[in-house]
């Protein structure tokens, strides 16, 4: 497929005796939102770390735009934007300085910084040290950093943690507008209503494996839970 941005083929990751990700394969196309759902420890974050090239699979391959990520070419990684679950930020940089660093690392247009600060309502606190930010502000800064560089594939690990309701809506709108512009998303989240609403396809993980995959409507049909909250659909597959 020419418009496939991400291809994961038989990826396995072990930590000692524990198999965190067990032979997972998936593909995400341009303009598609793929969500990963699963309980804590299901292997979502480990899979995401391999997708972003931070961690290496023990076997299997990850391809971004048909380029093998194991070669770690900077040009391959420039297609990626990433928000980690555990966001470790420089406490002694200001919000704007942090985004300047990210823009520099991604060799992105510096004018994007002001736009993202405004979009994520951080302009007022841009000159405050990150160490003085609240959890929500930190998450917004992480999201702004992920958006910088106009990456074609955005990988967001638990993007809703710490966000208020209004910002959750703004993020959903942003994801939808970026999807229309042809950008793809891999999102990991525990908020099932958000996952159902925003995703084109959902992969449900349990013990390192994807146990169900499909459009939210198809998963509802498979589980025969057409009117129940999507949370119940999730439990149907993970039980």
């Amino acid at each position, binding site marked *: 497929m020419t418009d496939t941005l991400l291809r994961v083929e038989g990826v396995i990751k072990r930590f000692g005796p524990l198999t965190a990700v067990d032979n997972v394969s998936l593909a995400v196309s341009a303009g598609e939102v793929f969500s990963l759902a699963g309980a804590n420890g299901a292997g979502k974050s480990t899979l995401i*770390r391999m997708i*972003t*090239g*931070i*961690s*290496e699979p023990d076997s299997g391959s990850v391809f971004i735009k048909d380029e093998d990520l194991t070669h*770690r*070419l*900077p*040009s*391959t*990684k*420039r297609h*990626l934007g*990433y928000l*980690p679950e555990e966001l*470790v*930020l*420089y406490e*002694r*940089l*200001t919000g*704007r*300085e942090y985004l*300047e*660093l*990210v*823009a*520099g*690392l*991604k*060799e992105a247009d510096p004018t994007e910084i002001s736009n993202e600060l405004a979009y994520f309502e951080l302009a007022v606190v841009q*000159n*405050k*040290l990150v*160490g*003085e930010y609240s959890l929500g502000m930190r998450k917004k800064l992480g999201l702004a*950093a992920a958006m910088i*560089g106009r990456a074609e594939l955005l990988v967001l690990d638990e993007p809703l943690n710490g966000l208020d309701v209004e910002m959750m809506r703004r993020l959903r709108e942003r994801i939808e507008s970026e999807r229309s512009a042809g950008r793809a998303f891999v999102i990991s989240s525990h908020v099932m209503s958000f996952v159902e609403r925003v995703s084109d396809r959902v992969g449900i993980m349990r013990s390192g494996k994807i146990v169900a995959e499909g459009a939210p409507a198809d998963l509802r049909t498979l589980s025969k839970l057409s009117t129940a909250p999507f949370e119940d659909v999730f439990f149907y597959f993970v039980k």
Partner: protein
Amino acid sequence: MTYLISTRIIENAREWEFPSIPAAPVAFGAVVLLLSASLSRAASEIFAIGHPRAHFDALPLSIDAQLRAAVLIRIARSLIVTAVLLLIRWRLGVEVAGVLIPTLCFVALISISELLAAINWIHLKHKRDGLAALSTLAALIPAIAVSSSIFTELLSTSAGRWRPALTAAGFIWALLIYAVLKSCNRRWRAGDIDYARRLLTSRRRASLSSPLLRWRLNASAGAQLTRDLRLTLRGFSSAVYAALGIAFLLLASEFLLINSGRFPLFFKIEGWLDLAWLPASMAAKFGCVTACVSLTSILPILVGHELPHMWLERAAGTTGLDIFQAKLRYARLIAIPAPFIAWIVAIITGQVPSSYAAPLLGECLLLWLLVSSFIGAMSFEIPERTGLALLMMSLTGLAVGFLTAFMWPIGLVVLGMAGHTFTERGRMRARYFLLKGAD
């Protein structure tokens, strides 16, 4: 780390002597400097800005509790400064027991004065209350006078006849201004706290966008260098202050060594070229090498500090060359004052012939280039083991520096023959670290 720093300070003190300069003006200057330089930090301590203690304002605690905590923190900080002074006195065999109580008195008085100055500074800026500021100034002037006098005693080798009286006056004045501080805190804290928070957390941008700093670096390496310099300017670790302090002591020792004439003559001076071995020239070069090593010792600590953040470089596709170049440039920039200060110190002693002034500067610059480049190139040798990396980098820097200080052509040969290999190894280590470090 603390042990290493303390050991180095005490070792340096062995060669140091109390200068024969008038102690009173120095003490007065130091006290005024302490008071003015600590305004913002002391205000942050009183109002617990950026500290978990800020939540205590929501707990059913007395309004004095936060103040008492601030006083204790300030006293602890002042104690560190005076402890170093006492350590130096002890090392030089100057009486220590007799100045212990005056030292405690000085610490109490200066700490409370700093807090009083800080709380008034915030209130003056917020409410423009000139009368309150004048009253505080009236209380602070005697405090400055008494603390300067006690500090003069700490700098002197012999006991002054007014020492007991000064100590008593110091304690009494400390108690008096503590009462004033308590009263100010009770009256102003609630009104000033939000203003203090805004004042102390705004205007944080450090402009480091000079193209000269990023010369011949790409955007990625330039961004990393800017981050490293910003973190250093904001004191990301107490090691920054320690490295600066040690570098200062080493350069001060150079001045004292040249002046005392104690620096040995290693080789016989017969011609112009032999002026490189003149005691003053050698002291300048040794000062330059040791100060360079001290300043660049921040580098492994910075790398250690950045390790948890490296996911960003890994996810952004940063190359080994980029992270290596950023650290190499950082090492060179952080150490650049050392050759100039070491050279100026040697020149002002008047013991370097004017005909050798320019070559000596050249030698100092060569030493800086060698030491900082070698240390910079070792940034990613053992990044996870900061202490060992610090030791290894410092020893390498000292070895290559001292060798070149004795015979500058060796430095040129080392730079020409091993420089490229070392740099290439540094780049490969950085690349390996990026590729394998995550798991």
